[in-house]
């Protein structure tokens, strides 16, 4: 009983000190500015601030796995805490969060929850009137209007059948409404979205693996690209579609991608070298 009380009364930790460590749901994290205010004790001299404290705060973005709880961050998923500095953190990437940075929890899961702006692979399950019902692996199928394709008009309908694979992005995705997806961007161009071609193989992996493979410095993809001509499409809902010249090559590719999640770097290199020889 005493331990439970102790755990419940655990001090909120500073977010900065926990970066890269495992956090559990229910923990509260202090942002850097608050750290100073609620620092050790309150006794002792404090330098006079000319500008009032709260007004000089910067905007912080809390990403997936975190929620706002008053002035603190509340962890909702278990995983490692990550942070990205604004404006050029991580080697020249586009600015993260504009002032204050982004915090998020790097967690692992298989179930996809639709998020606005994500590119996903969906399977057309039904065609009803003007919309297609697309299964994206979430709790309900997303709707896709037939006008949401490049060059589609009321007379010129897109050639989409039940069972086709679609690569599109979400425009509406929240817990209160049915998700809606489209296959064009805001300018009306397809940008690679739309029906995915014939043949190939679709398989499912965990969401964390997709993010790992799509990271800018992913070695796995670079090595795969050297093997033989192939095409891959990654959906953020955990689905990958691959296509190569022969069925055997396609299957090898699928097996590698599924297995590379649990392999160490050495094992992976060994497998690739064996493949390159054969």
């Amino acid at each position, binding site marked *: 009983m005493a331990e439970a009380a102790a755990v419940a009364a655990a001090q909120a930790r500073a977010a900065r000190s926990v970066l890269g460590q495992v956090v559990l749901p229910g923990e509260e994290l202090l*942002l850097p500015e608050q750290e100073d205010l609620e620092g050790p004790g309150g006794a002792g001299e404090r330098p006079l601030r000319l500008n009032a404290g709260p007004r000089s*705060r*910067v*905007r*912080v*973005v*809390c*990403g*997936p796995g*975190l*929620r*706002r709880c008053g*002035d603190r*961050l509340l962890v909702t998923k278990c995983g490692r805490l*990550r942070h*990205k500095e604004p404006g050029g953190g*991580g080697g*020249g*990437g*586009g600015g*993260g*969060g504009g002032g*204050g940075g*982004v915090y*998020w929890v790097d967690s692992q899961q298989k179930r996809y*929850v639709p*998020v*606005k*702006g*994500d*590119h996903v692979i969906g399977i057309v399950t039904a065609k009803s009137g003007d919309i297609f019902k697309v299964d994206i692996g979430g709790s309900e199928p997303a709707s896709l209007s037939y006008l949401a394709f490049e060059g589609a008009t009321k007379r010129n309908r897109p050639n989409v059948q039940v069972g086709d694979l679609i*690569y599109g992005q979400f425009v509406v995705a929240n817990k209160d409404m049915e998700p809606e997806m489209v296959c064009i961007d805001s300018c009306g161009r397809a*940008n*690679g979205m739309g029906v995915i071609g014939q043949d190939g193989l679709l398989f499912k992996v965990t969401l964390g693996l997709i*993010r790992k493979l*799509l*990271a*800018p410095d*992913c070695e796995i*993809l670079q090595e*795969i*690209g*050297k093997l*033989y*001509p*192939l*095409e*891959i*499409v*990654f*959906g*953020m809902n955990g689905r990958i579609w691959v*296509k*190569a*010249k022969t069925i055997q090559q396609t299957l090898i590719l699928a097996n590698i991608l599924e297995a590379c999640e649990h392999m160490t770097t050495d094992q992976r290199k060994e497998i690739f070298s064996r493949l390159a020889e054969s």
Partner: protein
Amino acid sequence: MQRGLDSETKKQLEEEEKKIISDEHWYLDLPELKEKESFIIEEQSFLLCEDLLYGRMSFKGFNPEVEKLMLQMNAKNKTEEIEDETLELDVSDEEMARRYETLVGTVGKKFAKKRDRNKYEEDDNGHIKPFKAKKMFLKPQD
């Protein structure tokens, strides 16, 4: 006979009307709540957190359109590196300057009045001579 009401009574009536209307308005009898400006924005998307590459990829020329797309989309994400190639000019700067020199004269000639046309005399080489100063009336020094 006095038609209508006095200005005084009119004012009184207006005031009374206003009072009735404002009494009908509802308001919350609560103390003023200070709206706290939240400095934390919630986002559920991973796009903001990690720079992810574009999802469609093709290697070794399997699908040329997708390879073109890959270059396009990935260049959009990262800050574009300014390429060092300077634009190749069809006409060099010097030649451009020479042509311009002659052009100014000939086009200007078109719009000049008859009296001014003799200013555009040409040299032996075909270059326009520099303008001579216009002859103005000189006041005699006393």
